[in-house]
């Protein structure tokens, strides 16, 4: 389990990185935290000719607020959020999600941009940022573009990222003080890949009640108006949730049951449901 031979470059700045990414010939892969790419290289599942290491680019480590959004450089690590080095939205919502990603060693190196570009359906950021309605900022030699995550991710490990393009930042819309995040992840043990993710953001002041079913074998299922599935007095409509997940291609009964549970529990948390309605069953 050793990687095949490849070339590695460490560009000094973003412009050079984009130049290298645009070079013709062979497979070029971006190396950020390397927490997914590293094992894939060693298992020889990916055989790049050139690896462009962007982890040291200062442009990709910047964080700031712009308009009504938090703009996070693509190479900000999960641990940066967990430890509070990167600013957050709401009351520690990103830190909460970040601290549950894999293991600390992974969080030390893994990056938010790398996670989105890799587009593993089981990734925590993919589901959470979909619930936030975040956007991805993408650069290439010909300029930058912005795209909502829902349009960016087209399937399992599939995005609209074209050759020569690089994820440079994520724009996360600000939330009000009353906003509540529901986030439930089913994994067989702490730190392992999720088998089902439920994420929900309810922010009445801003008119947001969005729910996401993640860790499908596809892009996350986003429900723009979660009130269709959850009512503070009647609770969770699991039949409707099951119907939607089935329509999204989740055929296995047990899998669907787990996803319905995750979604229902995330919604109960986001809607601040009374204890009697917290339990989905």
């Amino acid at each position, binding site marked *: *389990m*050793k*990687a*095949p*031979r490849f070339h590695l470059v460490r560009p000094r700045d973003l412009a050079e990185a984009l130049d290298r990414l645009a070079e013709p010939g062979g497979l070029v892969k971006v190396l950020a935290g390397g927490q997914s790419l590293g*094992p894939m290289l060693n*298992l*020889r599942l990916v055989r790049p000719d050139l690896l462009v290491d962007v982890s040291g680019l200062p442009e990709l480590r910047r964080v700031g607020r712009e308009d009504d959004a938090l703009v996070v450089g693509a190479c900000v690590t999960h641990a940066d959020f967990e430890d509070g080095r990167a600013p957050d939205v709401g009351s520690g919502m990103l830190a909460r999600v970040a601290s549950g990603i894999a293991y600390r060693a992974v969080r030390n190196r893994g990056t938010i941009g790398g996670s989105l570009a890799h587009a593993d359906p089981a990734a925590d950021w993919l589901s959470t940022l979909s619930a936030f309605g975040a956007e991805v900022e993408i650069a290439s030699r010909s300029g930058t573009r912005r795209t909502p995550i829902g349009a960016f991710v087209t399937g399992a490990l599939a995005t609209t990222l074209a050759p020569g393009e690089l994820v440079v930042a994520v724009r996360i819309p600000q939330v009000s003080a009353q906003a509540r995040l529901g986030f439930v992840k*089913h994994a*067989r*043990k*702490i*730190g*392992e*890949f999720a*088998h089902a993710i439920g994420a929900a953001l309810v922010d009445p002041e801003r008119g947001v009640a969005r729910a996401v079913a993640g860790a499908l074998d596809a892009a996350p299922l986003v429900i723009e108006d979660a009130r269709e599935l959850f009512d503070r007095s009647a609770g969770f409509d699991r039949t409707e949730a099951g119907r939607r997940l089935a329509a999204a291609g989740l055929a296995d*009964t*047990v899998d669907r*049951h*787990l996803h319905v*549970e*995750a979604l229902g529990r995330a919604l109960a948390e986001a809607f601040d449901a009374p*204890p009697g309605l*917290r*339990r*989905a*069953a």
Partner: protein
Amino acid sequence: MNGPAQPLEPEGVGARLPRKEDDRYMRGRGQYVADIKMAGMQDVAFVRSPLAHARIRAIRIPDDIRAQVFTADDLDGVNPIRAVSGLPGFKPSEQPVLARGKVRQVGELVAMCVAPTRAEAEDIAERVELDLEELPALHDMLRAREPGAALVHEHWGDNVFLETLVDIGIASAFDAPIKVSRTISTSRQCMAPIEGRGAIAHVDHRLDQLTVTTSCQMPHIVRSGLSECLGIEEGRIRVVAPDVGGGFGYKGILLPEEVCLGWLALRLGHPVRWIEDRREHLTASANCREHHYEITVYADRDGAIRGVDCEATVDSGAYSAYPFSACLEAAQVASILPGPYDFPAYRCRTWSVATNKAPILPYRGVARTGVCFALELALDAVAAEAGLPPEIVRAKNLVRPEQMPFDNITKKHFDSGDYPEALRRAVAAIGAEDVRARQKRGEPDGRRIGLGLSIYCEQAAHGTSVYSGWGIPMVPGHEQAGARITPDGGLELRIGAQSHGQGLETTLAQVANEILGVPVSQIRVVHGDTAMTPYSTGAWGSRMMVMAGGAVATAAKALADRLAAIGAHLLQTDPSEVRFEAGHVVGRAGDVSVAQIARVWYRRPQDLPQGVHGAGLEVTAGYKPVRDSGTFSYAAHAVVVAVDPEVGQVEILDYVIVEDGGVLVNPMVVDGQILGGLAQGIGTALLEEMPFDGAGQPLASTFADYLLPGAAEVPAARIDHMETPSPYTQFGVKGIGEGGAIAPPAAVTNAINDALRPLGVEMLVSPVTPRRIVEAVLAARAAAPARKDAA
């Protein structure tokens, strides 16, 4: 004269001493195979079979790499690995070290590739093209047993290594009022020590020896195996085990890789190295545990067992592994299934079945984890049927202390102990009454509480009389230890086994300290090297403390006698007038220390008397316990879980272990052994599984798919020790190395079943995964929708 400073606290048998070896481990200074560098060393990568069962039509090697690739055709004079059992009816397999004619498992070695680095060797391996004709793969042991199944070894005529039957009056139980039958199974697992296997082979021209440095726990046995396969006399082979990062049984096995490397070093003349990677480990080698039981327990209404009737099948994989053979597990099942219980009737039929999977290897607990799982789950089913608490059913049937020593129904000789007391203590410590009250109240979060018990006894250090009956390539005899006083009064101990993490460098020093009084810091334990140690079958079967400890004690006593003789002379008195005490020979008028005696023996021989024993301060002594049928340690485990029936999540809320390992040499080391075993047991119970698809492909090839317990999954268990001495061993010690891994799967699963029984759910397959729980819960709901309201 000043000897070494005497420690203030006792360091002998019973002392909670920190482990000597941990200093280098904790500082990252251990030296494992992969840490060793040798001039001119090259790396080996193997071409392995991608198919579970296929005929080899051709192996095509591009010309430019031909000199770096070796196949079975190159291995002139190399014999296949043969691990034959003498049990009647056993069919031996021949495991070619590189496949010849056919491949019988995914991961079987087909060719070896040599290059300056492992990555380059893998580049070469990729270019070797295998032309394989796929054959039907046997991945299900029950189907492999049926007539008409494809054959792993054609000339056998079926796929059964060995079938055994024991029937001790089972018919007398048939009229019992309670009859409970269950189908119970444990999934295939991998052992997953922190360090995998790995070996370096080189030729030592000065000593005229092929030296194989390998991560193993039985170096002398590996040497015998290498000698048989390579056709070289044993004296020309040296096997060295450096620091070894966990063994658990896997590292007792002779690997075809080791034979290949030995041949290659002789052929190429430079050192060659192979370091197992995790994919090789998981998919090709370190497999274990796969058992299937059809078990029936007959009982009276009061819970008394009238008889146990069982058909057990073990998936032995493609080959019989050296030295333990393919039938160790299944045949052991028949002899140990009765566990710590006394009942009058028993029948057990076993099959060791060949399939197209990696050979099954003995893993910590060996067959005990499986039989404990089967019997303890079945006993909870009996308890449910009888309407009795599970502890009552167990207490009714456990061997009682006044029966000890006790020969059970399969003639196992239990040496000592109070099994019911262990159970009583465990039930009390877990607070069974409070747990059951809480269970009745229900949880605000909707989870369900369950209480589970299991109890076992563990035969350890069983010797010649037991293993000669198995007739496998390895039968343990007297265990040897060397002991030598150094000129400054320190002590060197030499043992032929390997300490692969269990702390022998400390505990054997404690044994010597108990007798000779030499401070533990002045005692060095040399192990894991056939050139530097006496012969030993090695570290297996929880035997080291009993056997190596006994040998060290015997050697130390012999040294004490010689020290006393010299000391008496120095004290100018008769040897009968002195006694040996705390590192000193004490006479009426004074005393001399070991260091003073050593100085005279080595440095001032002119001061010795004429008739002094010429053998000096160095001995090799052999040891066997008074009876070699084994010690029986035992433990009762009690656990409380919370189960979320909707998502199948299991949280362990409390875990109690009441353990009796006889006299404990170092209680802290024993706790470490128990807790390490517990972690592995939790893995078996909840997480670890190597699944296969219909083509015999192993599906968990990395730790992303093969889940091991981590810090968050292993409970902080509370341990209570009983110390009933064994009547047969030095100091009354018993072997305890495996017990921690035996009871947890049964205890945890019984707890889950206790939690889910009102839902009509009973889990009978390990690991009890969230998916299996949810599946069972949904199935139970579908079968009886009315239950949902009742629950």
